[in-house]
Each structure stands twice: as structure tokens, then as C-alpha cells.
């Protein structure tokens, strides 16, 4: 497939006619028909399309229209869409656009990122057979933000044609060397995002903390907690608007990570304020939990139906209806909570704890270096996981595996947030083996939670239309879940053995020293 188009900047004073004349002096050109384009550039909140090199657009306004998907090396693909503030791949008509978007977006929705209005003139560079060997597009665009129109630098996009590399090189040589055109720093859609003050690449749910060894623990905690509060706040509007399920998920992950920071760096903050914020974060987890549990059921609906239950999908439809209605009810509670005063105060207190000046902190570990504190915690949590995991046998209660998974999450957050302070040759494989173990424990616990939730619905399901048939099908689902749980448990010993291998234990001992007391 041809590479991504190259964009060059045209001198702002050069109008379209003059630009064509200038190019035509040096290249055999065919001039196409000029057109005006007005479109909303779409992406997921976390910028998945941009990261994958794709661009989706639709006309602005509330009209029914076409969503256009641009991908390097492929013709623009279009699909009819109904007017909506957001578009989920699963709601698009079947076909290549839906398939491609589903691969990249998964459960995330497309939302408008920026509006662009352009005048566009396509040109073709021809060879001796009058064959197009390079495509050029002159674009004069403006970013639109409400009533503001922000003109962007005019540019010339150079689009390669497959199999005509020599012609492309010649054309680029003319444009760059002889006409002196400079490459644009970024694509026009990115330029528009920057012009309206947007964030390129969307909002990541992962904090990006670059801590230096020797940083005071209170300063490190402040940096991480502030970023996490920012991520949580950024995800609130999308959660309340129910744009897609990942807003709530990312909000919850930010809260969970913040709780982990407060737990792991216990001696850093004033104990009373820390306890208050921890309680409030726990409350947020509590009020957001039921909707997330139901989202997990509905997102995994297709996987919920392993054979032979898969053949009974139609019989299980009343169950899906029940889950959807229950979610709607729980979501109304959630929305009220997120709009309420307690949530606003909780986040404000979280931020205040993060931004407290280091000199004001009263915790005994505030001035300890973050590397010393984090190493000690990583070492301790790892050792405890090895100890607890090794004690789990065939007769152990499921709670033992659940507890081990919680410890695993603790270790994972520690490595995500503070792993950058240590040797990546140790941290990377450690994260990998931990992830493998967590996947097995996750499978085990997810099936347990799923079984419990579904069992709890049986009475309500019986009262539904088609309930008896759905109950019988649910029995098959529960059997399959029980079998999956046995499978996960069978894999546990192998995953733990890798995680707790002697070599791994030695590396942890050497890399994460015990804190001097």
C-alpha cells in the first residue's frame, strides 16, 4: 500500500490560481474540479483512529449523511449514518467501514473532534501516457469553533500512486528543491485541533508521569494524584452523557489508581486528610460499580453464550432486556451521584490533597525519595503475592484467588506509576508475567462475578415474557461459566510458577531494595 500522503506548506500569499500556475510550469498537470468541503473530524475520546493512522469525517449538523473513513492506501470508504452526537461501530450498517472501525474502536464511540471548512482543488501529475502518477491536492482550510473561523496555512498534499515511486521522487524534488516548499509539521486535521485549543491524540486514561530518582515522595504523589484527578474529571461529562462505556471505566480506573497511591504511599500525607479522601474515593467506586458490572455483562454478551448456549441466543433475549433495563435504572442513580455536591467535593478534596505544597505535608514519609519508597512497596507486594499464591491449593476457597488478584492489581499500579524509576530490563518482563497471572485470576473472578450476578436475576427473569425458556438457557450459560472457572483454575499453577520463579525472585530482590529503617 502507498505510504501516507505528504503535506507541504504553500506560501500564504499565493492564491489558488497562482499556485496552479507555479506548479504547471514544472509538472505536467491535469487540473480537477474545485470543491468546498465542510466536515466534522471524528475520533474516539482517547484518539484511537488518529493513533491507527485513520481519519473519520461526517458533515456537520443534524442531517442524515455519510460517514467517510480515510485510510492511507485505501479509497475513502463511506457509510450512511443517522444523526447522532456519537457513533458506535456496532450501530453502523454492516460492511467494510463498520468492520474496520470496530477493529480499532472496539467499544469506544466516535465523537466530533474539530470542524473543518476547506476549499479543495485536486490535481494530477501525468506521465507521457497521460496517466496519473502522483495526486496533488491544494487545500485552503479554516478551523471552525462556534462563530470563530481560524484560517490555517494553505497546503499541498502529495498522494503517491502505487507503483510510481520514481515519479513521486521526481515530483517531490520539484516541489521541495526547486519550489522550496517546506513540509507541514502535522496533518491539516491536527492543525485544526491545535488551532481551536484541543488536545491532539485525545485524552489518555493512563497517567504519563516521568519521575526522576531522588524526587521527594510527596512531590511524586502530588504529580500522580493530580494527573489522575485530571483524567477522572475529563471522563465525567462523557460518563454523564453516556457516550460510551469507557468513560465510566476510565473514571473508575483513575479513582482506583488514586486509591492505590494513597494506600501504597501511606506515610506521605496528613493521615486525617488521607483517610477522608480515601473514604470518598471508595464511595465513588461504590456508586459507579453497579453500572460498570452491568456494562461488562452487556459488552460481553456474545461471549456470554458459549456453546451449547450459543444456539439459544434468541431464548436469552429476555435476559438481555432485563440487564438493559436494570442498567438504565442504575445509570439514573449514577448520573444523580455524579452531578451531586458530594462528588464535586470529593474530587475537589482529591485535587487539594494532590496540590498541597510539600512543605505543608505532615506525613512522616513525605521527604523520603519516591524510588526508595516505591522499591520497598514493590518488593513487599511481590513477596506477599508469591507467599499467598504458593499457599493456594486445589482445596483453597475462591476468596484466596480473589485476594491474590487484588494484590496483583496493587503491584500492577505500582509498576505502572513508578516502574519508570527502575531498570526496564527487570520491570518489563515482570509486568508481562504479572499480566499473564492476572489474566488467569481475572478469568476466574470474572466468571464468579458473572455467575453471581446472573443467579441474582433468576427470579426477575422468571417473571419476564419468555422467562421459562430463558431460565433453561441461563442454566446452560451458568454451566459453561462454571466450566470456564475450572479451566482458569487449572491454568493458575502454571502462571504462578512463572511469576514466582527463583530467577524472578532474585531479580526483584536485587532491583527493589528493602527500605532502610
Amino acid at each position, binding site marked *: *500500500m*502507498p505510504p501516507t500522503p505528504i503535506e507541504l506548506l504553500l506560501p500564504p500569499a499565493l492564491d489558488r490560481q497562482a499556485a496552479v500556475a507555479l506548479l504547471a510550469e514544472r509538472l505536467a498537470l491535469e487540473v480537477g474540479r474545485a470543491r468546498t468541503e465542510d466536515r466534522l473530524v471524528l475520533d474516539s475520546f482517547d484518539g484511537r483512529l488518529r493513533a491507527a493512522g485513520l481519519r473519520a469525517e461526517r458533515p456537520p449538523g443534524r442531517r442524515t449523511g455519510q460517514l467517510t*473513513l480515510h485510510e492511507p*492506501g*485505501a*479509497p*475513502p*470508504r*463511506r*457509510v450512511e449514518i443517522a444523526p447522532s452526537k456519537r457513533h458506535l461501530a456496532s450501530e453502523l450498517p454492516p460492511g*467494510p*467501514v463498520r468492520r474496520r472501525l470496530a477493529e480499532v474502536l472496539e467499544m469506544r464511540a466516535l465523537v466530533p473532534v474539530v470542524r473543518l471548512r476547506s476549499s479543495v482543488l485536486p490535481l*494530477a501529475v501525468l506521465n507521457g*501516457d*497521460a*496517466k*496519473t502518477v502522483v*495526486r496533488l491536492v491544494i487545500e485552503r482550510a479554516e478551523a471552525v469553533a462556534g462563530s470563530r473561523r481560524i484560517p490555517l496555512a494553505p497546503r499541498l498534499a502529495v498522494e*503517491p*500512486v*502505487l*507503483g*510510481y515511486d520514481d515519479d513521486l521522487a521526481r515530483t517531490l524534488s520539484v516541489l521541495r528543491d526547486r519550489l522550496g516548499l517546506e513540509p507541514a509539521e502535522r496533518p491539516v486535521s491536527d492543525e485544526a485541533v491545535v488551532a481551536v485549543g484541543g488536545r491532539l491524540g485525545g485524552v489518555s486514561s493512563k497517567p504519563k508521569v516521568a519521575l526522576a530518582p531522588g524526587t521527594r515522595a510527596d512531590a511524586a504523589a502530588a504529580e500522580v494524584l493530580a494527573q489522575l484527578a485530571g483524567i477522572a474529571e475529563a471522563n465525567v461529562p462523557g460518563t454523564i452523557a453516556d457516550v460510551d462505556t469507557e468513560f465510566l471505566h476510565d473514571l473508575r480506573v483513575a479513582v482506583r489508581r488514586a486509591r492505590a497511591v494513597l494506600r501504597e504511599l501511606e506515610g506521605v500525607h496528613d493521615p486525617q486528610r488521607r483517610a477522608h479522601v480515601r473514604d470518598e474515593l471508595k464511595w465513588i467506586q461504590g456508586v459507579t460499580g453497579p453500572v460498570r458490572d452491568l456494562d461488562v455483562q452487556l459488552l460481553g454478551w456474545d461471549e456470554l453464550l458459549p456453546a451449547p448456549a450459543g444456539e439459544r441466543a434468541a431464548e436469552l433475549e429476555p435476559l438481555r432486556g432485563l440487564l438493559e433495563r436494570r442498567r438504565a435504572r442504575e445509570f439514573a442513580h449514577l448520573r444523580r451521584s455524579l452531578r451531586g455536591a458530594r462528588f464535586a467535593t470529593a474530587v475537589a478534596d482529591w485535587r487539594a490533597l494532590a496540590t498541597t505544597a510539600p512543605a505543608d505535608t505532615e506525613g512522616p514519609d513525605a521527604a523520603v525519595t519516591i524510588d526508595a519508597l516505591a522499591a520497598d512497596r514493590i518488593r513487599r507486594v511481590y513477596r506477599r503475592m508469591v507467599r499467598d499464591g504458593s499457599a493456594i491449593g486445589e482445596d483453597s476457597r475462591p476468596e484466596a484467588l480473589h485476594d491474590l488478584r487484588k494484590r496483583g492489581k496493587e503491584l500492577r499500579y505500582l509498576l505502572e506509576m513508578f516502574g519508570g524509576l527502575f531498570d526496564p530490563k527487570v520491570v518489563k518482563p515482570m509486568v508481562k508475567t504479572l499480566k499473564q497471572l492476572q489474566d488467569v485470576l481475572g478469568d476466574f473472578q470474572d466468571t464468579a462475578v458473572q455467575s453471581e450476578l446472573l443467579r441474582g436475576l433468576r427470579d426477575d427473569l422468571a417473571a419476564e415474557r419468555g422467562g421459562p425458556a430463558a431460565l433453561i438457557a441461563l442454566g446452560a450459560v451458568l454451566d459453561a461459566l462454571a466450566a470456564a472457572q475450572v479451566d482458569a483454575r487449572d491454568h493458575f499453577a502454571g502462571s504462578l510458577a512463572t511469576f514466582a520463579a527463583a530467577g524472578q525472585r532474585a531479580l526483584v530482590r536485587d532491583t527493589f531494595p528493602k527500605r532502610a529503617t
Partner: protein
Amino acid sequence: MKTVATYSIKGGVGKTSAAVNLGTLAARDGLRTLIWDLDPQGAASFLLRIRPKVKGGGKGLIRGKGDPLSVMKGTDVEGLDLLPADFSYRHLDIELDKRKQPLQRLRQVLDKLDGSYDLAILDCAPSISLVSESVFSAADLLLVPIVPSTLSVRTFEQLQGFLAGADEPAPAVLAFLSMVDRRKKLHLELTKSLPATLPAVAETAIPSASVVELMGVQRAPVVATLPRSPAAKAYVALWERVRDTLDALP
């Protein structure tokens, strides 16, 4: 990737015109489309202004050597690429006959392009030979132009009989009337009666039109140069039928 082959035992019946115009319409629909010009005369390559030569030789591809993507050429239609004709294809039968699993050879080349394209259109030379059988083996849909004459209809029925009796799984078949001259009574009669009596015949008929003949002069698909002409509209209707047929295939 789905594969359509425009095929006929007879020459000059509108195979290449169909391949080029349907390829253009498929690309406009957003399908990453390739045309493989299997005809040593290179008519599709000529119409798309691409020189009929495969770098390193077309035989190499059949022998499983080289990456077909490296010899593809982009056409003037965005999203439509061409695997050009090569004069060595005149001996394709002999080449296939020398190889193990000759009927799988074309499929194996196409498999290398799967993932890069959504649709492949094979433009075949007129014949019934080992190449044809390889095409039947590679294609999901055989698109057969029929000139409105009694003999052509008989030939089409023979082809259906051949496919029904073949050992290999046969592709779906869709025929369409081509080069229809509305001034001729027989043409008009067959245009009405054939789709009604043979379900594998599309209702759309491609007219015998000077604009289609002019494609050879303009070297561009009629759906691009004269989109409002009756011929272009007929290709649009035919493409819609082909697309629906492909969508219905497993």
C-alpha cells in the same frame, strides 16, 4: 477478499469493459479493488493507461516467486489498482500444466494480496482451458457477458453444465446481456426473456454504445468519463447486482 472473474469463451463480448467499469464503481463504493489483467493482449492494462508488463515476468508470480504487491500499479481511479498483463501469459496454460496443483496457482497469488484488498476482479482471456479452470477455482463469482444470440445462450448453458459437473467447488455465476442493440428485435426479445427464464442472468443489459467503444480511444472507464450516459448507468445497475450477489455469498 472476494474474487470476481469476468469470463467468456468468446472474445470481444465486453469482458474487459465490464471489469474496468465495475472495478471503478467498486473503488468508488470504498472497496479496495484490484484488477488482474490475465489477458496477454493486455486490454484492461491499455484502458487504464498502464504498460502491459510485469516486472520480473508474469510467470514468476504463477511459480510462487515474488510479491504481487510489488508489481501492482495504481490506476487513475483512487482505490483501484492493477496487476498488469504480461505477454508471457500467452503460455499460461503450459506454465500451469508444469506445476503441481495447477488449479490452485491463481488462488495462491491472490491469497498473498488478501488483507490489502477487499475485491479482486480477474479479467480473463477468452478460452476454455486450464487457465479457465484455475479461474473457476479462484473466483467466488463468475461474471459472464452474453451477446444476445441463440448460440451465445447455448454456450452459457454449456458453461453452467461444465461447472455443475466439475470436481472442484464451482463459483456462483451471474450472466448479463452485453452489446445489446435496441434496434434489433432479437436483442430486445432476449433482453426481456432471458432474465425471466434463467435466474443466473441479470436484468441489467449493457447497451452496444459508441461511448463504450470510445473507451479504447479515451483510455478511461465510461463511468468516469460519461457518468450520465445510458451505458454508464447500466454499469452502475450491474455493479449493484454484483455487489448484492457478493454480499449474499458466504
